């Protein structure tokens, strides 16, 4: 009989942006550091060091308030490119131990499935320790590492020892490990659910686990099943390597000067939609959803989507979806630093022609797009564009 136990390592560099800044400037070590955009009128804290956290500074807090609370803090502007590069190096170190790896963009989080590697690399705790040591030596950052049988439990282990340390939860002791812990350590619970549970005087994970499926479904409906499993540490979610994640097409624009002009924003998003369309058509794919992520100058990020039942790849349809997503995103008057347009829920383009559209108009439009795509492929993305679209630099 084969053993199907999993070993999931979770590595987390606490305060990733600060950790990277401290590698670049050794003078920042052991001093309170806040990372926040400096020029924005109502800038919010993007990241802070443990020292600043202990003084009361939190992510998303207004910078003016944060600097009042922690007067000794060095305030640095965020350098996202630097964080991305550091994240890539972090991921590269881990890749040597397993190809099954899942990570965020620039957040210092990484899951590694090391199941079945013990004959190559030794026992799972030894892999955790060696990888940690390797990252410390090569990158000079000190990640938390925790080892468990699932992503859920390993993440909770990391939360327990933050900002530094390690935690190992043996396979089969998940429930005993979780029982005494406070509910706020359980990932995936919404604030509303926590409040509802506190009305029942349920404040620990073990108290939640004591409830039956039926009791939980009675209060939380379909979410009851999820809460039942979460509270018992049951998590069958696989570590999903990048290549196994649903495909998507992403186009991004960073404004040289932060922008609050809606007309300009619409133009930029339109241009990104055209780029998205070109990419989709080149790969003979269609998207059923277009998402827009706006990074505001104060450090806040807003994401909204618009979707359709049948996939689209033509500029007009993508533009309509992108504009809907933009309308939904523009809830604030703050200036925008960058915007990212994401086409996902992709599927292959059907070769079948539409039955109830005017074939002449449809074909003309398609021919026009094909001709424009050819020109762009040959002479560059900005060689030809619709009159309403601005040039993106």
């Amino acid at each position, binding site marked *: 009989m084969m053993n199907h136990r999993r070993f999931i390592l979770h590595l987390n560099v606490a305060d990733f942006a600060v950790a990277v800044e401290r590698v670049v400037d050794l003078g920042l070590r052991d001093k309170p550091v806040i990372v926040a955009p400096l020029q924005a009128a109502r800038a919010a804290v993007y990241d802070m060091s443990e020292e600043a956290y202990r003084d009361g500074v939190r992510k998303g807090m207004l910078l003016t308030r944060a600097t009042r609370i922690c007067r000794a803090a060095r305030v640095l502007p965020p350098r996202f490119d630097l964080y991305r590069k550091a994240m890539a190096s972090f991921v590269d170190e881990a890749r040597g131990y397993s190809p099954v790896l899942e990570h965020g963009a620039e957040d210092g989080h990484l899951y590694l499935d090391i199941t079945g590697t*013990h004959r190559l*690399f030794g026992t799972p705790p030894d892999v955790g320790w060696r990888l940690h040591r390797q990252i410390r030596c090569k990158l000079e950052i000190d990640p938390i590492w925790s080892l468990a049988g699932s992503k859920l439990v390993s993440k909770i282990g990391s939360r327990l020892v933050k900002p530094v340390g*390690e935690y190992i939860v043996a396979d089969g002791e998940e429930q005993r490990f979780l029982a005494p812990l406070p509910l706020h350590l359980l990932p995936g619970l919404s604030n509303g659910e926590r409040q509802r549970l506190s009305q029942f005087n349920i404040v620990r994970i073990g108290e939640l686990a004591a409830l039956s499926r039926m009791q939980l479904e009675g209060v939380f409906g379909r979410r009851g099943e999820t809460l039942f499993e979460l509270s018992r540490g049951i998590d069958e979610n696989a570590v999903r390597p990048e290549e196994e994640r649903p495909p998507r097409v992403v186009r991004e624009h960073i404004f040289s000067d932060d922008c609050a002009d809606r007309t300009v924003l619409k133009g930029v998003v339109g241009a990104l939609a055209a780029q998205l369309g070109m990419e989709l058509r080149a790969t003979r794919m269609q998207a059923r959803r277009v998402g827009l992520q706006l990074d505001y100058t104060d450090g806040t990020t807003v994401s909204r989507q618009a979707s359709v039942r049948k996939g689209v790849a033509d500029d007009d349809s993508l533009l309509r979806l992108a504009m809907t997503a933009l309308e939904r995103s523009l809830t604030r008057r703050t200036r925008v630093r960058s915007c990212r347009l994401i086409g996902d829920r992709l599927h292959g383009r059907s070769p079948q022609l539409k039955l109830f559209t005017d074939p002449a108009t449809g074909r003309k439009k398609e021919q026009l797009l094909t001709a424009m795509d050819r020109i762009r492929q040959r002479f560059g993305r900005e060689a030809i564009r619709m009159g309403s679209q601005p040039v993106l630099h």
Partner: protein
Amino acid sequence: MENECTPGPATALIRGQQAGSSCLVMTGTSGYSYLEWVDSGFYPPGTRSAAMLEFYGRFFSVVELNYTWYQMARSDVLTRMLAAAPAHIIFAAKLTRTVTHEREEDWREQVQRYRQGISTLGKRLAAILVQLPPDFDRTVSNRRFLAELLDYLQGMPVAVEFRHASWAVDTVFGELERRQVTLVSVDEPDLPGLFPRLDVVTNPALFYVRFHGRNRKGWKNGNMQKKFDYDYPEQELHQWCEHELGPLSSRASRGIIFFNNHVRAQAPRNALLLNSLIGKKAARS
């Protein structure tokens, strides 16, 4: 610290030459939670980590905790382990790596935290194993560090494993004896620079032996799977029983012996074999 538990499996009482003197010898393994021990047939198929110690206890009465080297000894973790451990098992626990191998500036506070955590084991703690890295040689600064570390661990049962040959001198043994700290005897490949195989006893309350395997080829390899891949033939264990066990057991009231050659479950097999040889020797004594 005396163990009040009744001797269980893989233990043997060796009578000494003097009337009334005896030594309780217990064999076990370095670590017990190895997935490959399921594949190798020591644990039944499908055994989960949390259930391994219970099964291990059917064969052994002592275990060396490895994971306290990887992670700081914490009361919550050890309480969970004790809840699943058979009552007769006693423990030796490695001191955490951030004190011995990757010493950090705050190592003194870490020793305090370790003491607090490991005290959860109470009277079932047979020894704290201070394993020193191979490059930890006998320099003035290292001697000072070790003396200070032993001061911080005062009052706890401590065993020290040197891996550098420079510590094999009488003055070191004398100081360990004065502090009632156990010198760990090691069985490892006969390679230059390694701490030699000795039968020195520095603490009459406890002798402590670690069998690492004699894999000369794999020793210098960074991969633990190669380093500790060794199956002791019966003849070698028999020789050890005949030549090494006597001097050790005659000078201590208790002895614990661990096998670290965990690859392919060689450690529990060899530990059981050695125990049967010790049992025969005890019967003769």
